[in-house]
């Protein structure tokens, strides 16, 4: 069934922005929203009213994005906000992350679901510590596409040499971290160069504008290299006259694809069966793939419940109770060795204990502090965790969905930590390691 509408269905790109306070991030966001007609008249009027009541001459566009009372009062951005805009070619979900002191956890939050990150740099300052932090987080979170937006080109006379030097330095650094793809774009968010419209001031630049790149960057990968994974969310059993024996395993495909007839194994039990049918929200299909929400029907009546993972029998991950991961601590209270926590992986939540914190990472220079004893808010480090039950975890490098987990405080439910299983950076060679031999390299 399909209905013709004036506006056709397009694809969806989730992306995040990163930039420190004065890099012009709000201006860039404002321009993307404004030039895609996503800021409407009443919203602009509200900003004008509020700006005027504060005695400001010109509308303060930061008021468009700073949504909370405290943010407007203090003139700062406290938390990640989500913005929406669309062009005829694609729809966008922008995780607008603040560039303030709490940058790490906010950027990790924004980047965890992003397919692309825009890292802003001030052309006058070039690659600075903050830029390296942003690149490191994008690499840690394995964001597939990174855009380096060299902003304020108007303040360096639109010189190609300035841009080229920054782009070269950043790209070399990012590639060393294992960032798979960097697109560098010289822009002036304020003047509008290369954001939505190509710049008349930089003839030497032959690449896409920021928006053009956002519209055309591919949003999926080749699934033939992905391990298929379905975390079971819910067992659907109508038990009605019409469907007396229906027993379906509902979930969102976390990676790869499944097809009818395929031999599958259920983890952690290890029981095997075959896919008898796939329901895609009420309609039978022969094949389904990542991120579709589906219901699998199996040939054999085996015991499967929420928290189990269905995988192809020929490609099952090992289960383990000992997890080594890179984590970003997001709560205000510290994470310490011996901490008893809950670990949510896919649809399964199990008891766990923090056995060791071998190292903490300094994002500025990627150096390691061995055995820090604890991780505090915004720290990134390595942890070893023992879980009460075996979990089928993948390496985060292989699967962002089944290689990630969160730690939860069992006493009050606070989300403590974001975790990524396996090695940290996809670096071809180990980057420098100043610690003792902890058996682990950044």
């Amino acid at each position, binding site marked *: 069934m399909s209905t013709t509408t*004036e506006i056709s269905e397009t694809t969806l790109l989730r992306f995040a922005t990163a930039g420190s306070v004065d890099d012009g991030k709000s201006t860039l966001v404002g321009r993307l929203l404004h030039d895609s007609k996503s800021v*409407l008249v009443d919203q602009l009027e509200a900003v004008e009213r509020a700006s005027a009541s504060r005695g400001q001459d010109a509308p303060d566009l930061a008021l468009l994005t700073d949504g909370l009372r405290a943010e407007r009062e203090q003139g700062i951005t406290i938390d990640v906000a989500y913005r929406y805009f669309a062009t005829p070619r694609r729809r966008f979900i922008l995780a607008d992350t603040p560039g303030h002191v709490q940058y790490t956890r906010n950027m990790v939050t924004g980047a965890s679901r992003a397919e692309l990150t825009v890292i802003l740099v001030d052309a006058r300052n070039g690659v600075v510590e903050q830029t390296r932090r942003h690149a490191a987080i994008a690499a840690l979170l394995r964001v597939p596409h990174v855009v380096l937006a060299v902003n304020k080109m108007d303040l360096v006379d639109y010189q190609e040499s300035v841009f080229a030097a920054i782009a070269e330095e950043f790209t070399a650094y990012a590639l060393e971290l294992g960032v798979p793809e960097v697109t560098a774009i010289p822009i002036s968010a304020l003047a509008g160069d290369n954001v939505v419209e190509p710049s008349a001031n930089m003839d030497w630049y032959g690449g896409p504008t920021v928006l053009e790149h956002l519209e055309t960057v591919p949003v999926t990968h080749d699934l033939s290299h992905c391990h298929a994974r379905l975390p079971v969310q819910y067992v659907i059993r109508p038990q009605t006259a019409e469907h007396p024996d229906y027993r379906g395993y509902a979930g969102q495909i976390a990676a790869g694809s499944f097809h009818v007839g395929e031999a599958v194994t259920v983890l952690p039990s290890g029981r095997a069966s075959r896919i008898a049918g796939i329901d895609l*929200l009420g309609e039978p299909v022969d094949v389904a793939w990542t991120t*579709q929400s589906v219901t699998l029907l199996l040939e054999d009546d085996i015991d499967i419940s929420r928290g189990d993972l269905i995988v192809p029998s020929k490609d099952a991950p090992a289960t383990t109770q000992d997890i080594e991961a890179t984590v970003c601590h*997001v709560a205000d209270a510290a994470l310490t060795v011996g901490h008893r926590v809950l670990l949510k992986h896919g649809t399964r939540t199990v008891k766990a204990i923090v056995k060791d914190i071998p190292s903490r990472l300094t994002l500025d220079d990627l150096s390691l502090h061995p055995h820090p004893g604890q991780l505090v808010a915004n720290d990134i480090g390595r942890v070893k965790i023992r879980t009460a039950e075996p979990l089928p975890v993948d390496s985060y490098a292989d699967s962002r969905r089944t290689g990630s987990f969160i730690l939860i405080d069992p006493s009050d439910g606070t989300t403590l930590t*974001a975790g990524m299983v396996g090695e940290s950076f996809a670096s071809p060679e180990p980057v420098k390691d100043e610690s003792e031999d902890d058996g682990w390299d950044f």
Partner: protein
Amino acid sequence: MTTTVAETEGGTEAPYALSHLDALESEAVHIFREVAGEFERPVILFSGGKDSIVMLHLALKAFAPAAVPFSLLHVDTGHNFPEVLDYRDRAVAKHGLRLHVASVQDYIDRGVLKERPDGTRNPLQTLPLTEKIQAEKFDAVFGGGRRDEEKARAKERVFSLRDEFSQWDPRRQRPELWNLYNGRHAPGEHVRVFPLSNWTELDVWQYIAREGIELPEIYFAHEREVFARNGMWLTAGEWGGPKEGETVEKRLVRYRTVGDMSCTGAVDSDAVTLEQVITEIAASRLTERGATRADDKMSEAAMEDRKREGYF
């Protein structure tokens, strides 16, 4: 509707990319199933408006061919549009659902709430809503709120913890990582869940068109007796309008949002089909709330303040 493999002219798009509506639908279904798997007593806030109608449609798809494992909760302001109440009751009957009603009029009749001088009952909904949640011990409450509606809502999590007073504290929200939603809560607390967080008004309309979902007639242009107040066309009626100096006239209008009659305005429109509505919205230079909601204009932080108190 089966999935669409998106294709673009340049062939730059990889196969297996979901269309944006399929991606949003899949994400919302995932959220419904997470709640069904993790909570004891979830409920869907259902107003008969387009967002809650889309929520119900998604819930039906998420658990098909089984029944939706949630009941519905309607906060009846006493000033609802009759067409919408009718729609609500038909939907409940059709899908065999259980409906809870929290009634603002009851609270006014009992003297617990007082009518406001401006006649709007929207802020009065908070108490009946939160008391019903506590009384029925609902631990997950689905709302149709979208982040694109309002800048305070842009900060809202998909799983949003409310304390035992149903209050929202925007500064103490849990970071939401990947799609690992954290639904932990203490007894007495509950979680507001927003499966349409990432949808825009246009997405909702496109989805309604794609799925062929029926809506109350007031969403389409029709002749109606209205009068002007605060720059909006309000429906004349016993609820309190027109007052002296306000004159009723017949106009061709439709509604972009459906709420209480006292604060939801109609817009001039001749859009009678879904296609015409979509074209009209795509060309509109006003947000739906800016065009038709008086309550959001009360102060710069009106929505945030009401949400803090427990509003949806």
